[in-house]
């Protein structure tokens, strides 16, 4: 390189550096990586408390009490000619489906080692982690490298009589001796970052709440097609042939989790430090 070429190259690179860095606008935000300090495991744990509470209300108050007054629940509840609502596993799936519509990349799945449908049986790494969960009774956290998602698995416990009654009676069920408080399967949460901000947590909780609301709203829409629909309003199936309105259902759900979730979020907001969370929320709804 001649002396002239060298100086021209140096001058060009200098101009490019000034253009790109010295006079450039602020750098693009990198997904709030710098501000994230909360381990994603804490977010999973908080979400699972909320999810468990919604599942308990649905299973016990809607499915369990509803069956006593003549409401039906079925795997094929979306079929036009079937007057039925979603079974608990399908209510969770409805919730999860709604959550996927959000730009927040939080995912929720439900599975088991004894599922009614063999297609839903855990396999591979998920099965290995579930066996450890079953033995230790501890939530399992791991990373799924091929899709880059951090994962949390939480025990799905038979918290209400309808859980075991339905699974024990179902002719497709591979196990007919479930007992109350057995670990029947696991809820699996997935998220693309190992650490999150408080804002990320709030967004994820909001998405879950919206998912639960959408799942219940879908059921109420189906109810409208019934020949003799139950009265929708303030009352619950335990009072008779009634269903709570969307607002009443959501109020009951939010009240059942608020005493746990709000203090946790408040503590995180104040200290921005990790604090221990309760792993499952089955006992907070009663």
């Amino acid at each position, binding site marked *: 390189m001649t002396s002239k070429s060298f100086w021209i190259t140096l001058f060009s690179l200098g101009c490019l550096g000034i253009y790109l860095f010295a006079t450039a606008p602020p*750098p693009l935000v990198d997904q709030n990586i710098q501000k994230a300090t909360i381990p994603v495991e804490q977010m999973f744990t908080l979400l699972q408390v909320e999810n468990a509470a919604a599942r308990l209300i649905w299973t016990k108050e809607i499915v369990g009490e509803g069956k006593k007054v003549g409401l039906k629940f079925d795997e094929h509840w979306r079929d036009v000619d079937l007057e039925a609502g979603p079974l608990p596993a399908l209510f969770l799936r409805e919730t999860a489906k709604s959550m996927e519509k959000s730009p927040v990349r939080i995912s929720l799945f439900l599975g088991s080692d004894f599922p009614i449908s063999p297609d839903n049986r*855990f396999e591979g*790494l998920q099965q290995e982690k579930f066996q450890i969960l079953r033995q230790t009774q501890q939530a399992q956290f791991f990373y799924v490298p091929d899709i880059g998602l951090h994962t949390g698995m939480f025990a799905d416990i038979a918290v209400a009589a309808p859980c075991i009654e339905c699974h024990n009676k179902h002719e497709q069920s591979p196990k007919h001796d479930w007992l109350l408080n057995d670990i029947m399967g696991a809820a699996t949460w997935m998220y693309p970052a190992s650490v999150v901000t408080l804002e990320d947590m709030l967004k994820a909780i909001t998405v879950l709440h919206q998912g639960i609301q959408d799942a219940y709203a879908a059921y109420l829409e189906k109810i409208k097609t019934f020949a003799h629909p139950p009265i929708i309003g303030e009352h619950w199936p335990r009072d008779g042939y009634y269903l709570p309105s969307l607002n009443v259902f959501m109020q009951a759900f939010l009240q059942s989790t608020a005493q746990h979730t709000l203090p946790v979020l408040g503590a995180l907001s104040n200290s921005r430090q990790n604090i221990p969370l309760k792993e499952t929320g089955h006992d907070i709804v009663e």
Partner: protein
Amino acid sequence: MNNSTATRKPQHLAYKLGIMIGLLALAILLLPAYDKFHVRGPMNSGHDTLKCESCHQEAPGSLRQQIQANLRYAFGQREHLADFSHQAVSNENCLACHERPNDRHPVYRFLEPRFLKARENLSPQHCVSCHMEHKGQRVTRAEIGYCVNCHKKTKLRKDPLDVPHDRLFALKRWESCLGCHDFHGNHIMKTKKMVGQIIPAENIRAYFRGGASPYGDDRHYKAKKEVNHD
């Protein structure tokens, strides 16, 4: 020396003229009216009137910010690459029109850890794994026996077929699945009860290539068209 410079003058003029014509042609081709000249290939079935910007949305930030961010990434000062010029096309673009409550195989379901083998073989968590755009087809996956990846253990409570499903699985007749079942479950149809009456594999392949639907035209949900189409 002077002679050499004199002979190069017309050459330089030709270079400049060529560059100017080239730039002008490029500028004209980049006008929205000439979109069809710079797409990668023919649009897939049903997408003929789709606007480019329905899927190809501008990436956040200015050109300088994007270069800056990617240089930072190259030097380890940033965790993620920044989209350059346009955002990567994702499932969200497809689902903006094609999301349905009755989807039997929504893409997100395959993110669950247990679907690792299916992800390795098919990448079903991405719409474009089967519906690559700009190919002039409907389904760009050539083989039709992909159900084998997840349904080897499927059992039916009341099998309606004359040849039971588990027998078909044992015979590895995986190309027959789509003869009764459309993958996303959006067609309103009655499934056959005799294997001899199912839709032939060639008809399914023709449908994949963009032909008429062998499942009929009645659908539970139509794709949302009004926003993104011309």
